[in-house]
């Protein structure tokens, strides 16, 4: 099923096979197989309503697929609840930013370490040495992550007070605090201007290289997709219509037709 993966050597970080999800009579995603090779950057594109976000939600456990399997690393996570999948190493950001607005940037990151920390009620109340060490290490890691995404200066500010770009970065820092194998970015450049988008491409590469995670993007901005992705998968009406290197996808007639419309022979417009 996992068609023509070029990377081949290492086991994929995430493999979804034959995913089908039906809502009543509607097949939102039909028999889609998809792999994210280890430490790769792949994109999922497709016109609105193609089933991208539904597919995302299946991966993260929000929806249970009607049939098919999701394997994260070595582990079948298909039927696990979302928080279990997250703690096993699948982190995500949201299309519409969903931070914990009335918590500081640092606290936002610390929340995502929940499953990696152990202190329970009694140890927290007693503030045992172990609990204090855990808190201190958590805070250090949180600061490190905030510095890594470039918002260390606003660690003590409430998330709602951060600028839009900083909020997006905070979402990435928070997701990285889960120590993920795979990071899913849902339209991360929505609302960014071209300059910011260009910087974002570098940032995604840096996250992959320095944090050692595989990255899956859903993205509308074709210039970003083409520059950042190693592989691109195209969904249309719930089905996978193409998969391959960005340049091949650019040239694929079915994609051009389905995604950009029949006249879309030049450029990769801001399809919304």
């Amino acid at each position, binding site marked *: 099923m996992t068609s023509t993966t070029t990377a081949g050597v290492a086991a994929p970080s995430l493999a979804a096979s034959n995913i089908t999800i039906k809502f009543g009579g509607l097949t939102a995603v039909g028999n889609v197989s998809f792999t994210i090779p280890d430490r790769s950057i792949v994109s999922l594109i497709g016109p609105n309503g193609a089933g991208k976000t539904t597919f995302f939600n299946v991966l993260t456990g929000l929806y249970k697929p009607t049939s098919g399997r999701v394997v994260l690393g070595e582990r079948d996570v298909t039927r696990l609840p979302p*928080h279990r999948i*997250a703690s096993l190493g699948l982190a995500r950001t949201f299309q519409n930013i969903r*931070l*914990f*607005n009335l*918590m500081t940037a640092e606290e936002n990151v610390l929340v995502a370490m929940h499953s990696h920390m152990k202190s329970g009620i009694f140890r*927290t109340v007693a503030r045992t040495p172990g609990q204090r060490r855990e808190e201190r290490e958590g805070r250090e890691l949180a*600061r490190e992550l905030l510095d890594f995404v470039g*918002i260390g200066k606003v660690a003590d500010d409430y998330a709602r007070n951060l600028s839009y770009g900083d909020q997006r970065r905070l979402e990435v820092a928070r997701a990285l605090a889960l120590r993920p194998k795979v990071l899913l970015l849902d339209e991360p450049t929505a609302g960014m201007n071209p300059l910011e988008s260009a910087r974002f491409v570098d940032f995604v590469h840096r996250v992959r290289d320095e944090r050692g995670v595989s990255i899956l993007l859903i993205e509308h901005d074709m210039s970003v997709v083409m520059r950042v992705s190693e592989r691109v998968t195209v969904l249309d009406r719930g089905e996978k219509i193409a998969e391959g290197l960005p340049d091949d996808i650019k040239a694929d007639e079915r994609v051009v037709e389905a995604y950009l419309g029949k006249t879309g022979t030049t450029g990769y417009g801001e399809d919304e």
Partner: protein
Amino acid sequence: MTMTTSPPATGSPSRGSGILPWARRNVWPLGFTAAAVLFFVLYQWVLANMSGPVPDFFDRWLPLSVVNQCIIWAIMAVGLNIVVGYAGLLDLGYVAFWAIGGYTAGWLMSGFFDSATVSVFGHAAAGQPHGIHINFWLVLIIAGVHTALWGLLIGAPTLRLKSDYLALVTLGFGEIIPEFFKNGDNLGGFNLTNGTRGITPLDAIPTGPFQYLSSGSLPIPAELGPFDESLKFVVYALIAAFVIFVSLRIREGRLGRAWLAIREDELAASMMGVPLMRTKLAAYAVGAAIGGIGGVCYTSAVGSIAAEDFAFSSSIILLAMVVLGGMGNVWGVMIGALVLQWINGNGLKELGNTITSATGHDINFPSYNFLVFGAILILMMLFRREGLLPESRTRQVLQEPERGQLESVGADLEGDPA
């Protein structure tokens, strides 16, 4: 983790060492302690040795029994704050936990079950050879654990619901449990709760080793009778301090952050590895345990337990204390509870008496209790929605934030967001 080169966190600059910054950081705990000591000294020594208008004034406007009631309500409000203020789960039936804690005390600290004769460091009242008499301090722990279990039991089915639905189901439990106690005098022939007659009298609070500290000016009896109000005040203030301490400590740790995250955005929290059900159940259990402890205090202060005490209105008053005080902020909630319970317990009545004697109109103020509550609630929501002493976070939402200094931060990486 491959990258560990970044410098570790530097603490925020306000965290100096030395006595003054320490005091500034702990202004509320210190204030609470100081106020408690002041009250004790005032009632134990100053007022007791005075005569004339001053003790008379205190006796009318702020008798110690009312102060004790206020503190006990504050204990329960702090417990409710964990559920409502921290975790954002609207609970309209919190009185159920108060009732369970109260009846736990009733069962374990009285001669009610006279077919049994059990005493665990007990202090049975004279003429009560039978029954279960367990030491008050042990009962506090037992009731805490017992109500926490009920919190889990009630929470397990209800916490799957969200917002309005959850509120309605908790309302249901808040009605069922007091009804159960009211009608529990014939459960298949077994009298569990003594129905509307309630359980009385209850064992006194033992002072244990502290009785040996007794001195001429401060007599400490082995057990605190109905007239040892000032020593009971110390007991309740200590329990309140403990409850506040626990509440603040949990708030700062892993669990407290998870509660806040759920309050802020449940879906995002679960996507960040926070188990929703477990975390919410923990909030319910801790809140219930504190409610149970409050119930034991209440029962011991009143000296009896009766099912009528646990009306829906009590749940609402507790909720009003949390909201008016400043949801999420323990100290605000405590102040809200003290103020509202004083109005409820004594303030209105005395105001009525004063007006009656001044004008000759006989106005029964306590009967306007809920009118006053309603008016206060409306005024607060109009002019100070965040509560008397809000959590700094909520103040952020309810008063518009200042972004000024934040605009440029991160611009070097971001391009200019403005």
